[in-house]
Structures are given as structure tokens and as C-alpha cells.
């Protein structure tokens, strides 16, 4: 009988673009393994257009943070009206409760949302929105961030664990609708290539690759690749960085360097990335977006970015991970990579060679990792690196995994 009951699930992902893209495996596995009759997604309103491109998502609910801020501000002076407005909004957004909310975030807001919209919460908040106890996978994630062990389970696979499903074993792709690009950008990807999308920013300055490095990288790439082209990817706020990169570029870049920063919607950005063979940048949303539309990723990971947790998802991506600069950073602060201002040399020539000639090399201060995929999810391997791999991922899964109980959900629904 349980199979006859309509099971309605809601994935709650209120973090940023990168986290939304990293949720794709969990959503794919929920559809394949949990056999939800309806699976919806709740994500921040600015990301709703990307949410709509995720296969297996029936409806995307856009969470409008600004509205909540406004209501919070107004509550004292117009409490009754505020509550009425909220209820009207919630009724339109979520007409009926879900059987299960799959909460992928650890902050209070997500736990509260999950409790509001569903009778049954999986993931953080599964024992109530005020609880401090984390489910096993969420506790693991917190431990990884603290200890930064090697060979750990990737964030996207932890999301699967939080939902009570196994990783899908493949890297899911976004299904982009037919998308018109600004006319001057429509020729990108139409010539031989390779075409490389350079993600110029990363929000926080500490996570950004310096402009001079990008200038040098592009110059070297265009020299090394006869038919290659580069497109700069970024938001409106990153246009200045794009101008800075183009400033002083030689005539070599004429007709081969395109600036798309601040000129495309998120879906258009994804379409543009899908026209490129490669996407290169630090650990950012657009880098992960690129992998989700078929581009191969070349990551520069430094500071707090760790390839084992948030490396590009899928097979065949490359990541340059900056090594810790001191014993202190390697121990007291986990295995955190060098800060951007501590990096003396960047793997510019080495990464260009990888793209143009598919030849891997070494660079002082960096480790080059290649991504692989198996039934336990994504993992990273580095040639010539002999390190304690830590607890095998298989063991981690056996230790932490609590398969989703469909009966429990059906019972809740009944």
C-alpha cells in the first residue's frame, strides 16, 4: 500500500549557487532511489532559474529573503498584517505540507523552513528546528571542515547521505532550455577551440585569483592554443575585475577574448559555459555550474577551499590545490591551503599545458588532483602523492548511512 500513496518531497537548499549545483547528485538519487512521486526544490529566489533546469524537480519554490527581512522589520509595528501576509505568501508557495523535507543546510533558517513545510525532516533539524544534535552525516561534514582529513566523502555525496540515499554513480547534468545569448556572444564555442571560460571573481577577495595571474594565464593560453578562445564569466559586480584583466592585454587577444561579465542571466551563463570545453577558476558557483553543463573544470583551490570537500563533481576534472605554507597551518588550522597573498608561484604554464596538450605536470607549492567517480561518489587522486588516505569512503558510508525509510514517510502522511 505505501507505494500507492503519493509521496511529496521537498529539497531545501538555501545556500549559494555552488551548493545548489552540488545538490544535483542528491536530487538525482532521490528520484532514482526514493521514488518520490513529487520532488520540489526550495532555493533562494535569485537561483530559481537554475533550479528549474534540474532534472526530476517538478516545481521550484523561490525563497524571497528580502520579503522576510521586510516582515522582520515590520513585525513590531504591524504584527497582524505581517502574519497575514506571511500566511498568504506561504499558502501560495506551499499549498499543502510535504511528506518529507530534505534539508541540506545546517543553519537555523533552513531547519525552521523544513519544519514549517513538512511533517518529516531529513537532515539537520530532523529532531526539531531548535535541536543542537546533528544527524550523522551532518556531524561528519562538520568534522571534515574542522579536521580536513584526506580521502573524505565529497560535499555533494554527503548531501546524498543527508537525504538517506546513495550517490548516483554519475555526475548529473542540468537540462538547459533553449537560450538566446547576446548577439556578440553567440559565436562562442562555434569555432574549433578549445574554448575556456574564465571565472574572474569569487565574491570574497581572499578567494579570488589575482588579476595579474589571469592576465598572464590568458596571454599564455592564447599563445599556446592557435584556435583557442577565452570568455570571461562573472556577475555585474565583477565587471571591474574583467576590465582589469583586459586592461593591457596584447593584440593577441583581439577576437579571441570575450567579456560576458554582468551581461548574462544565470541561465545564459550556464548556456555560455555549455559552449566551452573548459571552465577555470577558484572554488566558485560558476565553476561548478560549468561542470553541470558539460565543461571540464580546472580549479585553483587555495585558502579555505579544499578539493576533497568541494572539488568539481564528476570524472576527469583537474584541481590545483595550494599546499599549506607552514606546519602551523597544516596542523592547528587543519590542512588549509596557502592564502592568496602567500602564494609565490601559480601553475600557469602547467595548467595551460594540461588544457592544450593534456599533459600533467608539477608546480612548486601545488598538488594536482584528478577527479574520479565510483559508487561511493567522487574522489580525488594525485599522481606521486603517497599519503594516508584515512578512513575508506566505503567504511564511512557503512558507518553513517541511514537509508531513507519510505514506510516512515507513508506513515507520516497517513
Amino acid at each position, binding site marked *: 500500500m505505501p507505494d500507492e500513496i503519493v509521496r511529496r518531497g521537498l529539497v531545501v537548499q538555501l545556500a549559494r549557487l555552488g551548493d545548489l549545483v552540488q545538490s544535483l547528485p542528491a536530487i538525482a538519487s532521490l528520484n532514482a532511489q526514493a521514488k518520490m512521486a513529487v520532488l520540489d526544490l526550495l532555493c533562494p529566489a535569485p537561483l530559481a532559474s537554475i533550479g528549474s533546469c534540474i532534472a526530476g524537480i517538478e516545481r521550484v519554490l523561490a525563497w524571497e*529573503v528580502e520579503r*522576510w*527581512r521586510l*516582515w*522582520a*522589520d*515590520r*513585525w*513590531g*509595528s*504591524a*504584527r*497582524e*498584517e*505581517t*502574519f497575514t501576509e*506571511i500566511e498568504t505568501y506561504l499558502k501560495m508557495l506551499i499549498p499543502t505540507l510535504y511528506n518529507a523535507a530534505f534539508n541540506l543546510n545546517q543553519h*537555523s*533558517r533552513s531547519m*525552521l*523552513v523544513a*519544519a*514549517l513545510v513538512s511533517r518529516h525532516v531529513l537532515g539537520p533539524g530532523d*529532531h*526539531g*528546528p*531548535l*535541536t*543542537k544534535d546533528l544527524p550523522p552525516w551532518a556531524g561528519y561534514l562538520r568534522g571534515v571542515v574542522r579536521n580536513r582529513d584526506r580521502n573524505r566523502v565529497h560535499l555533494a555525496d554527503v548531501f546524498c547521505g543527508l537525504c538517506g540515499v546513495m550517490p548516483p554513480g554519475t555526475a548529473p547534468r542540468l537540462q538547459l532550455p533553449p537560450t538566446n545569448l547576446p548577439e556578440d556572444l553567440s559565436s562562442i564555442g562555434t569555432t574549433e577551440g578549445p574554448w575556456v571560460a574564465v571565472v574572474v571573481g569569487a565574491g570574497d577577495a581572499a578567494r579570488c585569483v589575482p588579476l595579474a595571474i589571469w592576465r598572464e594565464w590568458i596571454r599564455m593560453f592564447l599563445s599556446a592554443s592557435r584556435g583557442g578562445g577565452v570568455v570571461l564569466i562573472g556577475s555585474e559586480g565583477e565587471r571591474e575585475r574583467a576590465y582589469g584583466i583586459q586592461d593591457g592585454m596584447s593584440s593577441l587577444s583581439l577576437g579571441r577574448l570575450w567579456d560576458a561579465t554582468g551581461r548574462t542571466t544565470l541561465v545564459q551563463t550556464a548556456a555560455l559555459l555549455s559552449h566551452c570545453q573548459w571552465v577555470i577558476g577558484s572554488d566558485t558557483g560558476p565553476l561548478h555550474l560549468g561542470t553541470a553543463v558539460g565543461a571540464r573544470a580546472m580549479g585553483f583551490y587555495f585558502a579555505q577551499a579544499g578539493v576533497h570537500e568541494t572539488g568539481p563533481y564528476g570524472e576527469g576534472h583537474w584541481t590545483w590545490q595550494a599546499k599549506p605554507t607552514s606546519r602551523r597551518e597544516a596542523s592547528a588550522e587543519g590542512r588549509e591551503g596557502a592564502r592568496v597573498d602567500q602564494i609565490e608561484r601559480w601553475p600557469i604554464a602547467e595548467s595551460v599545458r594540461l588544457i592544450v596538450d593534456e599533459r600533467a605536470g608539477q608546480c612548486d607549492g601545488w598538488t594536482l588532483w584528478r577527479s574520479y567517480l565510483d559508487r561511493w561518489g567522487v574522489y580525488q587522486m594525485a599522481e606521486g602523492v603517497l599519503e594516508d588516505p584515512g578512513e575508506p569512503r566505503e567504511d564511512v558510508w557503512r558507518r553513517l548511512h541511514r537509508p531513507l525509510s519510505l514506510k516512515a514517510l507513508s506513515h507520516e502522511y497517513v
Partner: protein
Amino acid sequence: MSMFEKNLAVIVARDPVLATALRESRGGAFNIIAARNGQPTATVAGRALHSAYDPRREAEAWATAQAAVCRPGEVLIVLGVGLLYHIEALRARVPCDTTIGVIVPDLNELHDVCMVRVLDSWINHVEWLWSSIERVASSLAAMNAPLRFLVYAPAAALHASAHADLERLIRQHVSARVGGQVHVAVVGPIYGGSLPIAKYAAAALEQLGHRVTWIDHSLHQASYDAMTRLKDPRHRATLQSRLADLLGQLTLARVAEDPPDVVLALAQAPMTLPLLEHMRKKNFVTAMWFVENYRHLTYWQQVAAGYDHWFVIQKKPCEDALRYAGAKQVSYLPMAAAPAIHCPLPLTPEDQTTFGADVSFVGAGYANRRGLLPRLLTNEWAFKLWGNEWDGVTSLAGALQLGGARIDTDTCVKVFNGTKININLHSWTGEGLDPDGDCINPRTFELAACGAFQIVDDRTLLPDVFTEEQILTFGRPDDLAPLVRQWLSDELGRRQMADAARQRVLAEHTYDHRMRQLLTQIGVSQPDRVGAILQGERQASALMERSDAEPELIPVLAQFAPQERVELKDVALRIRKRGVSAMLSREDLLILMLDEHRMETRDLL
């Protein structure tokens, strides 16, 4: 029947007195012409009050923008009559139970409207406030609802003075009965004359029952001074600028940890434009009391646009200059005294000997003082000079007390009390008297509060705060010594004038008064936020009374004392205190959710 008569027939049904008054008015206030689309439009002295192309569409755009900011329960007061296109459009855009009042300073304008526009029945769904400004202010202040003022600028500009009077009168009425507890963060400077003013303001706010977070940057004066001693001016400027930036961040951290309703900075507080813009993004209400002469200290130009409210001690052209620089709300708020500190003080014989004199002056050695005060050196009376920066004025060396040291407030008060005639000469860097002298220094109020007799140089704004029976002024340097001579022998006259001045200060010019006026002004501008708090609408008792629609909240509210202010965070805290395993209702979850969004102010840094 003419258009005028038809319109009057509509009005008379609801307000026959207004209809009669309109019939008796002459009209002719506006020059009526046809807009391009044929609708009537109006000009006054060549200035258009409505669009010359499509007055109705223009009015609709205005009304749409205004309606978007209005909240349920507010009374909307429109300044600016014109041909009423904007009123008609506004009436159509706000709920029918929203009261709209229109201030009509000149009935001839309404007469002109009736002559050229067909006024439908909507005109009877508007309150026409056409009696004297005093009566209008009184009736508006008595309303038991928040007022929101909407300005239709082209028409309102014709009566700017009347509108300013109205605002001032309403403020007076409202400030006399405000009671709620506002949380104000007072941000002081690192050092300087505005530092004691900041402390007086903070003390006054507490005295009025508000909650104050005192952000005291004077703690860092030693570091600032250490930088002053650097020889290279570039090092000095760079490091002092960085210290100011750091203290700005410290201010942010303080307000983030305990978010106030209002951030009140005093002149010279280390607040930069980016910092203020950051605060605005986080929805903080900011105000600056610029207790300096805007002509002397000009850094206001850099931060004018950053504050939501400016309070200044000068009127025009200071107010205009600030507005031109980007300030949104500028209000006149003169200096004041703190009667708990500035008060009559019986002196011991020893103190009288030390601090007393026939004639005294307290202050720093500005150029005008250096030129004028030597005229008081005479055998006819004993003259004492107190204060610093008097180097090089050899003629005054014999009168200078304490070796020209800077003197503290206690000493000031003793000098004021022990002196028969206190000279109060406003600072100026030129010779003689400041030809632009308008603002009144704090000393004027402090001397008066001490019950001390003073002679002050003439200031254009002085008649606003003291009468000739309360303060003696002089308009030319040559007049000072004769006045001293005349009043030194008139002890009774001095006493009467000083007593009258003290009574005026106690009645109208204390920091309590100023802070009440300041908060009321902010409250009037923001009826839904600070205004509602001042009206006591956030107190537990008031919330209980309005909890009919949400009975679930009554048990929560009952946990608070009736006069205790209850905010979202307080209710959320009570819910959290029930423990992690407590059963949460939907209302509980919503309150916690709202509180999570409120707490984003903590992300300020």
C-alpha cells in the same frame, strides 16, 4: 450651473463651512493654462505645479510611489494643493478606510481648483485642513494614529514656511506626550567640544526613560594623541585616518551586537560615508546632531548623504547647504544646557576668591577674542580670563588664570557662578564680531542655566531662544565696555535678567528638551518605526490589547511587564527558552523565522 457651483454643491453636502469659505474666497492664486493634452494645469510666478503635457499621468506616478511606502493604519497628510490631480490619484491608490488630509494654507488655491476641474465625490473622502496652522497642528497631534507626511513638492514649495511651522508645532505637541522606550546608540567623538555634548545627550535620553548604548570613542584619545606627536604629517594623517576607520568598525560591531532603533552620532564622531551606507543597507536609522558651525567645520559635505536625519544648530543657509550636499532630512536643533551640571552653586569664600571676579571670560584664544578682550582691562573692575590658546597676547597675561590651562566643566560652573558679569563672545577667526553670527554656543545656555548674568555678542538666532529681558547682547565691539560699566552697578537688574534666563532654559532649553524634540522629529518622519515606539505601541500592554487576532501570543506577552517593551527578539528568546524538545506551534516557527532574518544585522562586519 457653472463648474464652480457644481463643485461647491458636492462639497457643501459634507462640509458647508468650507463651501461658504470657498465662495467668499477670491481665487486667483494660480495662473491656469491648458496642458498639451487639454487638461488644465497651473503655474505660479512661471513655475509649473503640474506637468505641461499630462498632469494626470504625472500625478498618478507620484501617487503610486507614495502609496507604496504607506502602511495600514496611518493617516496621510499631504503638503501641496495644486490642482489636486495628485490627491485624486492618491485617493484611488490607498484603501478607502485610509484617512487622507490635505493642508490648505491658502483657500484661494482650492477656489481656483473648483473653477477649472470637475471634482467628483472623491473630494468628500479627503479631510481639508484649512484653519490656522496652530489649530491644524493641534488637531493632527491629537490624532490617535501615526501620521505620514507626503510632500507634493511643486505645490508645497509655495508654502514652505507654513509647512515648517506646522511641523514644528506638531513636534511640540507630540513631544510633550511621547512615552515609549527607544533604544538609542549615542556615538561620541574621540575628543573635542562635542564630547561633553554627546554625554549630556546620552544622559538626557536615559533621563527620559529611553535605553542608551553609549559608544565612547574618547577611550582612544591617548592613541590618537600619540599619533599627533608623529613628525611626518603623512604618517600622522594616515594613521589617524586608519584609527578613525577602526573606530567606525567598532561602532558597527557595537550596534550589531545590540541593534538600536536609532544611531545618534555627535559632530566629529568617526563615521564615514561607506560606514553609514552599510548601516542603511542593514536598515538602521541614523542621525547626526552637528553641534558645530557648518562654516567652520566642513567635513559634513562628505557625509551629508549618509545620515537619515541631520540636526543642526543653524537655519538657512546651513539647512540648504546640507540638502544640496545630499542630506535627506535637516532640522534645526539648537544647543542646550544640562541643569544637573549647569546650576546655581553657592561658593565657599575660598572658591569665591579663586574663581570669582567682576568680569570673566572663559574660552579659547580665537582671533576675535584676542582683539576685543583687552578692551576690558581697566581699573574700574577686576577681569579674569580662563582657558587655553592665549599664547602671545601679552596684554592679557595678567588676567589669564591657571597659566592658560584648559579648564574643566566644574571649574567653568564655579567661574560662571562667582562672576558678576560673564562675557560670552562667540568664536571667530576674524576681527571684531562674526558678521555671519547665527548659531548660539552652548555657553549661552550653560551660563543661563547657572543663573549667571552674561553679555553675549548678537546672534541672529538668539531671539528664537531668549528675549531681550532674558539675555543682554551687544552688536558692536565698542558697546561692550559701556555695557559692562552700566550693568556692574545694577545688581538687581542683573539678578532679574539672570533668573529669567534660567527659567527659560529650564522650561525650554535643556538636553532633555532637545532629545525629546530630536526623537519626535525622527518619529514623525518614520511613523511606523520610531514613531510607533514613542507612542508606546511596542509595550506589552499595548500589544496585549491588539492581540485579539492572535490569541496564541497572549500567553507569551503575559510574561512581560505591562510597560516593558516587547520586540521580536524578546518573543523569540522566550520561545527558545522553552527548550529544544518543546512543541512549537506554527506561530512560534514564524516568529523564530522572522527573528533569524532580523539577526542578519549581526553580519554587519
